[in-house]
């Protein structure tokens, strides 16, 4: 049919018309596409990008909460920050917290997931028990921990005393306050990581373990190295990044239990930010701290994006 038509005259004439139509159609399609993307874009602009730009702008001012006016002061906030000992202490504390909580919560989460997955009985029970801290309000749980760690009548010291060990003022001692917060952080993040790892474990085909067993991976460790660990790779990257970001955001436990003390030993970035912004009303300086915090979170997100792109796992 088309062969016949191409030998006839009208076709060359028809072609420009059809290309014009084709050119108009993508434009229509583009308009529709922008129309569909529009609402989400506007929302993102209003809720995410706008406030972000606002915070960055604020960090270059001397604005104080409630003040009628402000002045642009350039990088003064940042200079002050670099010179401030409290900032460095809280940054070091935050990084220490992240470095302890991330491996702890990821490693234990994986361990618990493997244990739950390997046993047949009481799976639902263990899953629920480990997931409870995730569902509970951390502020309320922090108060429970405060009682547990109380120097005089706390459960932890009670247990220590009952086995003949000396009691300790966990949250009041500079050396153990941050560590205690780390333990609470791990306790809280563990359940969430466990659920993610469990989902990852379930998606590993059973036949791969059979193949590994036949191929000579007789020990549980060699099967873990050959199958489980590499196939959990994408999940692990995600879990590490999520735990990292959440650890950077640590605030509730610090605020309830120590208020950054004793003598700044548990002061963390967001707590400093809160103090500067809402206790001392130095909004400009708090905004500068926020920008530093965002840089860290953004870096983690970029690392995740890069690793996720490299992982090519297809069945």
């Amino acid at each position: 049919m088309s062969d016949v038509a191409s030998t006839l005259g009208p076709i060359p004439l028809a072609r420009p018309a059809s290309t014009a139509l084709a050119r108009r159609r993508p434009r229509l399609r583009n308009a529709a596409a922008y129309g569909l993307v529009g609402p989400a874009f506007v929302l993102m602009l209003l809720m995410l990008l706008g406030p972000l730009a606002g915070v960055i702008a604020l960090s270059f001012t001397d604005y104080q909460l409630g003040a009628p006016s402000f002045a642009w002061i350039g990088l003064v906030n940042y200079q002050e920050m670099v010179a401030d000992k409290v900032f460095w202490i809280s940054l070091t504390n935050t990084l220490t917290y992240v470095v302890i909580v991330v491996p702890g919560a990821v490693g234990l989460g994986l361990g618990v997931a493997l244990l739950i997955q390997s046993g047949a009985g009481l799976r639902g029970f263990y899953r629920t028990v480990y997931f409870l801290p995730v569902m509970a309000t951390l502020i309320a749980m922090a108060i429970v921990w405060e009682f547990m760690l109380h120097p005089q009548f706390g459960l932890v010291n009670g247990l220590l005393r009952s086995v003949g060990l000396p009691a300790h003022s966990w949250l009041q001692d500079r050396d153990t306050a941050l560590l205690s917060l780390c333990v609470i952080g791990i306790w809280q993040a563990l359940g969430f990581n466990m659920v993610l790892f469990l989902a990852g474990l379930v998606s590993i085909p059973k036949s791969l373990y059979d193949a590994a067993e036949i191929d000579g991976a007789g020990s549980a460790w060699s099967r873990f190295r050959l199958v489980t660990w590499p196939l959990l790779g994408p999940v692990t990257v995600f879990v590490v990044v999520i735990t990292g970001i959440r650890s950077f955001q640590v605030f509730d436990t610090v605020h309830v239990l120590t208020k950054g003390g004793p003598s700044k030993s548990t002061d963390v970035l967001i707590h400093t930010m809160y103090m500067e912004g809402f206790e001392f009303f130095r909004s400009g300086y708090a905004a500068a701290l926020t920008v530093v915090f965002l840089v860290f979170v953004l870096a983690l997100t970029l690392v995740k994006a890069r690793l996720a792109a490299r992982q090519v796992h297809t069945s």
Partner: protein
Amino acid sequence: MARIELNAIRKSFDTTDVLKGVDLAIEDGEFVSLVGPSGCGKSTLLRIIAGLEQQSTGEVRIGGRPVDGVRPSQRNLAMVFQSYALYPHLSVYDNIAVPLRMKRLSTLERMPVLGRLLPNRHRVEREIRGEIERVTDQLELSAFLKRKPGQLSGGQRQRVAVGRAIVRQPVAFLFDEPLSNLDAKLRVHMRAEIAQLHRRLGTTFVYVTHDQAEAMTMSGRIAVMIGGELVQVGRPAEVYDDPRDIRVAEFVGSPKINVFPGHLRADGQVEMLGHPLGLAGSGLARPCRAGVRPERIELGAGAFCGAVVHVENMGAEAFVHLGVDGLATPVLARIGDVRLLPPLGSRTRFGFAPDAVRLFDAAGKRIETRLVAAPQRAREVAVV
């Protein structure tokens, strides 16, 4: 190279008996197919041989040695899975290298960074490279060594799985429905390839399939399993021609065998739809079933009459479905010459030679028969 013996293997999952006492001896270098409908326990039996599953009772011997309680990795068997079970994060080369590395390198030497510093690892890796290259040349995989399984086609993945099995030189190969995930054309091709592989290696092959055509075309012997029992073991032609159980007769052969209700009379004669078949069986008078393969049904003459309800013409052959009064399912006849097809809706006579009949009792067990003179049919022949 090994003989595999299964003695009274039973397996129950909770209260369900999956295997009800299986005895089977697979000779060294033999190609045996375990065939049966899904859920008959054939894969479980294979997994018991491999050691991936523990039998409830009974004994497995490989090469004369009982292997109960021996780990799968110590049995030196290779297995090819239905899903291929390739490690998705490893390249083709590394996938094939896994069994060799597991066997020849210690846990420490397999470590990613530390292992490389150990002197033995270099030497072993060189050996392994040589062996892998030999196998991948045979299987025409050399061009894909660096690819991940996800970048390969189904047939190529299948070959990688076979390569991983060959490279370790196992005493026997176990195949668990390896062709089920391939398209029809490739399946026929791989059938020939696996049969050739068996001829070349001369190793024991145990092949599980639900496709009777695969079992018939590839194996030296087939073992038909139904409902957790081995119903018949024999050469493919023998099982096809001389089924000992009606379930075997129905499972083996495509299209399915025709089964007619019949009656064994007190005088020993067998009659079907009121006509004597020219056959005599032994034992008491009782109802029985007569099986006749579609290719043995002759159209145009005979004691029975049916209407053509459906015709399937494949070009080289055709299947004619005949509706017969008194029979619930149509009778199927295979016609070698498609030019002689009866028109749809026409009535035609049909019959079959007495020696085409396989007789089964009500429980499905085979009844031995002998030919007796059938006057009506003899006259017809004489007229012709």
